[in-house]
């Protein structure tokens, strides 16, 4: 411990240089953490999905609806314990610049099947009894300044006209992948206004045992194979994962850029750290003369490099960890549940240790091996 003041004194000698080094390491790791979190958040969203929930879609494609009449037939299948349905609405609020998801759901069964949607009991009651009511995610409150009890008018893009809903409840999702920027309203009201077309965009099927998922999925698809609208049923997780793959290789791009960023900044930083260590040849020779051992000098130089790298890493990673939740970041709605994962912090810390070794090892070894006489001769 008594050598600590020596290390601190060394770091303080070129204050600006130390600060700049720490700052550039911090920036590198902040960027790294941010970019990697995009990848991990997308991967986490793809992992979402209750093991007991299946999703049934029209086999022709996402944009084609299914007859509402399929509901009762699916419900009658063995292994099915619950059923709900929903339809994409695609309404626009105001100038439409702030996109958010909104869909019509069969309210009672939808809230039953998604216990992840937390809604106060009185609000839930109000919503269930109000045919033209809607429930919104808590982010929409801050995004648009909506209040409980307020009337909100959406413009239909697919289903024309102005649709006015009364906000009966504000929910909080326990699973970030469910999204806190969604508006849901009654499917029955929706169906009535579009002239009882009797359509559902997709069905959510609850089953008794996750192990039965393949059998039930096959039973549903077989039942409608030769009908006008064949279905495609999969687990909710597969459904979510298909959305994640729609990004294409965005996550690959992000990780490549992340690596390039870290590598670039670390190169420059390691170089600067090595150069500043080289200036001290004379000093190290003096320390050796007064009796510092080779091993001790090696350790001192390494500790100094480590102090710079680790302080920078702590600032950069800490900033990422604190900043994103503080500004409630969700990538303009594209990255719900954006989170800096622990694995990212661990990898970031390892990168910092790598930097310490890369920038400290050469000067530290040189310091340890420095022949005193030669070094002192160089000084004067």
């Amino acid at each position, binding site marked *: 411990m008594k050598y600590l003041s020596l290390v601190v004194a060394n770091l303080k000698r070129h204050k600006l240089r130390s600060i700049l080094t720490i700052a550039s390491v911090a920036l590198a790791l902040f960027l790294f953490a941010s970019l990697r979190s995009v990848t991990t958040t997308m991967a986490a969203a793809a992992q979402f999905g209750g093991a007991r929930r299946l999703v049934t879609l029209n086999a022709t494609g996402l944009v084609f609806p299914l007859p509402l009449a399929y509901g009762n037939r699916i419900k009658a299948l063995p292994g099915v314990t619950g059923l709900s349905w929903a339809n994409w609405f695609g309404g626009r609020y105001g100038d439409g610049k702030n996109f958010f998801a909104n869909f019509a759901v069969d309210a009672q069964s939808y809230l039953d099947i998604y216990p992840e949607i937390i809604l106060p009991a009185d609000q839930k009651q109000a919503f269930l009894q109000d045919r033209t009511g809607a429930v919104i995610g808590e982010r929409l409150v801050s995004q648009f300044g909506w209040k409980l009890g307020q009337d909100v008018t959406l413009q239909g893009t697919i289903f024309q006209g102005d649709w006015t809903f009364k906000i009966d409840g504000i929910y909080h999702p326990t699973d970030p992948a469910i999204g806190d920027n969604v508006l849901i309203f009654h499917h029955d009201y929706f169906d009535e206004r579009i002239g009882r077309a009797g359509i559902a965009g997709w069905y959510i099927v609850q089953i008794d045992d996750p192990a039965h998922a393949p059998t039930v999925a096959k039973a549903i698809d077989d039942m409608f194979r030769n009908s006008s609208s064949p279905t495609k049923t999969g687990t909710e997780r597969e459904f979510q994962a298909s959305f994640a793959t729609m990004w294409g290789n965005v996550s690959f791009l992000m990780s490549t850029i992340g690596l390039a960023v870290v590598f670039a*900044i670390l*190169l420059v930083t390691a170089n600067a750290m090595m150069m500043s260590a080289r200036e001290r040849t004379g000093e190290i020779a003096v320390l050796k003369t007064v009796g510092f051992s080779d091993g001790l000098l090696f350790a001192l130089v390494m500790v100094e490099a480590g102090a710079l790298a680790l302080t920078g890493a702590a600032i950069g990673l800490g900033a990422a960890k604190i900043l994103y939740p503080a500004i409630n970041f969700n990538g303009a709605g594209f990255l719900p549940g954006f989170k800096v994962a622990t694995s990212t912090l661990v990898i970031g810390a390892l990168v910092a240790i790598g930097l310490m070794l890369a920038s400290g090892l050469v000067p530290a070894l040189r310091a340890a091996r420095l022949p005193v006489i030669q070094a002192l001769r160089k000084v004067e």
Partner: protein
Amino acid sequence: MIPIAYNVRSVVQRPVSTALTALGVGLVVAVFIGMLALANGFSAALAKTGSKQNVIVLRKGADSELSSGLGRDIASIIAADPHVATGADGRPLVSPEVYVLIPLAKSFDTTQIANVVARGISDQAWQVRSNITITEGQKPTSGRAEVCVGSRLTTRFPHTGIGQTLHFAGRDWTVTCHFTAAGSAFESEIWGENEQFMPVFRGEVFQSITFRLKDPASFTEAQRALQADKRMTVDAHREADFYAQQSQLLGRILSFLAVMITAIMAVGAVFGAINTMYAAIASRAPEIGVLLTLGFRPWTVLVSFLAESAFIAVIGGFLGCLFSLPLNGIVTSTTNWSSFSEIAFSFRVTPFLLLIGLIFAVVMGVVGGFFPALRAARLQVVQALR
């Protein structure tokens, strides 16, 4: 003035340190160019999709073809409109189109599904859209279950070769041709006859109607006439503007990312460069002392060190350009969330982007070198020489 040769020699004197700094700057520049090339390629693909001579008609309020729907009656009203150009055969150049998304499995990983656009067109579409060229095979025959596949799809999806059979919407479709569309988003689509697509998808309804203007300058007039027509409720857009607007959301995200990421990177790299130059100057203090003693003015020392820093950065800039060149033309794909369809596009590294990259490098070098150079210029001769 201190000869540049002095700086060049000093740089060469410490090859490792110079190489590391230049490499760092190079990587920053490469990422910068790469990200702009991505945004550029995406916007270019969609901007080229539409033509200024064409008008696309959607149902009023629909913000994409997907959410639109127009009946046959509207198609005939528009075909009879006096603003519509007529083809060589005397028929109006109008293409009422069916636009749907179909799930297709990708070649390299069949568990990955992409939503591909299937567009049902009229025979006039090949003339309405002047940038379409059939590269191989014959146009689908009217009345048959045949499709033409965009060139960007052929490598990424199985069963898209000529003569092969694609299965979608519960039917088999024979691929009879491949087409290119000057790099536009149409190349990521499957085209078939609208009359064939209507019954298997959404029934008797078109999603959009595209027509060629007789006189490209008369767009506003045509738009007003169509939108005022009491028999229908439609929005008319210039085709070029419509597709450009479809690219806005993702294009903005990509450009924003490019600027954000490189800004943070650049600051980090500049900090590193400052440190490197400070260290370089500290170890060369006696040299600088000698220069000052010889009678060089302090400002020439400042300029000399700035030039040295810029020189290293320019080497880095060239390296960055070199690194980014192989990106040019690489095809990548993502979902355009405005239309919900997958679109393939290539990185476009243009000379302009390379130039911006180089300028960016010089700026980093000058900014990074300024304060260290200032310190060099202000050195006290006596102190420096000691």
